C-alpha cells in the first residue's frame, strides 16, 4: 500500500514537471517564426527518463495525462488531436526501440522526436484531406532530430544520475 501511494505521488510529480516544461516551451521565443511546428519537446526529457527507469506503462500514463492536461489548459480540441497523434506514435516507437536495446537513449529520443512530428503530419493530412505535406515532413524531420539529440542527452544524464531512492 505504501509503495502504491508512493508510485502515484511520484507519477503526479512527473506530470507536474512535464506541465512546467510544456509551459516553459510556450515562453521560449520560436527559433524560426515561419516554422511553428518546431518545438524542443522538453516534456519528452521526463518521458525518456521514465521509459528507462520506471518502464513503458508508467511513462505511457504520465505522457497521456500530460497531453490531456496541456490541451485542456493551453489548447483546444484540435490541439488535442495533434498532440495525441504525435504523443502516441512517439511513445510507441520509443517503447519498441527501448525493448530492442539497439540504440542509446539519444537514438531512442531522436526516433521519438521524429515519430512525434510524423504523427502530427499524418493527423494534419487526415484533418485537411491533403497529402501535400511532404515539405513540412522533411523540415520537421530535421528539427525533430536536432531536438531529439538534445532531449536524449538530457534524458541520458538523468537516467544515469538520479539515484534509485528518489524515484
Amino acid at each position, binding site marked *: 500500500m505504501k509503495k502504491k501511494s508512493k508510485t502515484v505521488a511520484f507519477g503526479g510529480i512527473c506530470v507536474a514537471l512535464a506541465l512546467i516544461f510544456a509551459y516553459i516551451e510556450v515562453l521560449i521565443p520560436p527559433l524560426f517564426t515561419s516554422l511553428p511546428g518546431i518545438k524542443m519537446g522538453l516534456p519528452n526529457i521526463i518521458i525518456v527518463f521514465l521509459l528507462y527507469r520506471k518502464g513503458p506503462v508508467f511513462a505511457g500514463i504520465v505522457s497521456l495525462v500530460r497531453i490531456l492536461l496541456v490541451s485542456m489548459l493551453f489548447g483546444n480540441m484540435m490541439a488535442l488531436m495533434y498532440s495525441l497523434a504525435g504523443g502516441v506514435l512517439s511513445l510507441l516507437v520509443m517503447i519498441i526501440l527501448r525493448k530492442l536495446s539497439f540504440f542509446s537513449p539519444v537514438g531512442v529520443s531522436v526516433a521519438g522526436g521524429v515519430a512525434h512530428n510524423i504523427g502530427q503530419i499524418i493527423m494534419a493530412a487526415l484533418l*485537411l484531406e491533403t497529402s501535400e505535406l511532404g515539405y513540412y515532413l522533411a523540415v520537421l524531420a530535421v528539427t525533430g532530430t536536432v531536438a531529439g539529440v538534445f532531449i536524449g542527452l538530457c534524458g541520458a544524464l538523468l537516467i544515469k544520475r538520479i539515484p534509485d531512492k528518489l524515484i
Partner: protein
Amino acid sequence: MNNKKSAKKHSLRNDIILITAVILAAVIGLIYLNFFRSPGDSVTVTVDGEVYGVYPLSRDICEDIYSGSNNENHNRFVIKDGKAFMETATCPDGICVGHKSIFRNGESIVCLPNRVVITVTLGEKTDSPDVII
C-alpha cells in the same frame, strides 16, 4: 564491464547511423520537392478540405479567404508573376506567410490553424468568374 562498454559503443554507432539516415532522407526529400517538379498552371484553394476555388497562375490576383465558424479567420493569398504566396493571415503561427512562394506542381502552402491549403495543380480547369462570357 568490458561487455557493457562495447554495447554502449555499439548503440552510439547505431545512434549516429539513425541520425544520419533521417537527415539524409529529409535532405533528399527537400531537394526533390524543391527542384525536381515541373511547374503547374493553376492554384487550388481548399478550406476545411473543401475546394474553395481554382485560380490560374498566369493571372495576377489577390484573394481574401475567410474561414472558421464565424468567418473570423482571414488569409489573403496572392498570385504575382506566376507564383502564389500568402500575403497576410490571422493565424497565430504565421507559417503560411513565411512560406516561400510556390509555382511547381504539387507544391503547397498550408495554414494549419485556419485549415486553409493552397496547392499548385496542373491541367485542371479554372473556374474564375472572369472567363465566363
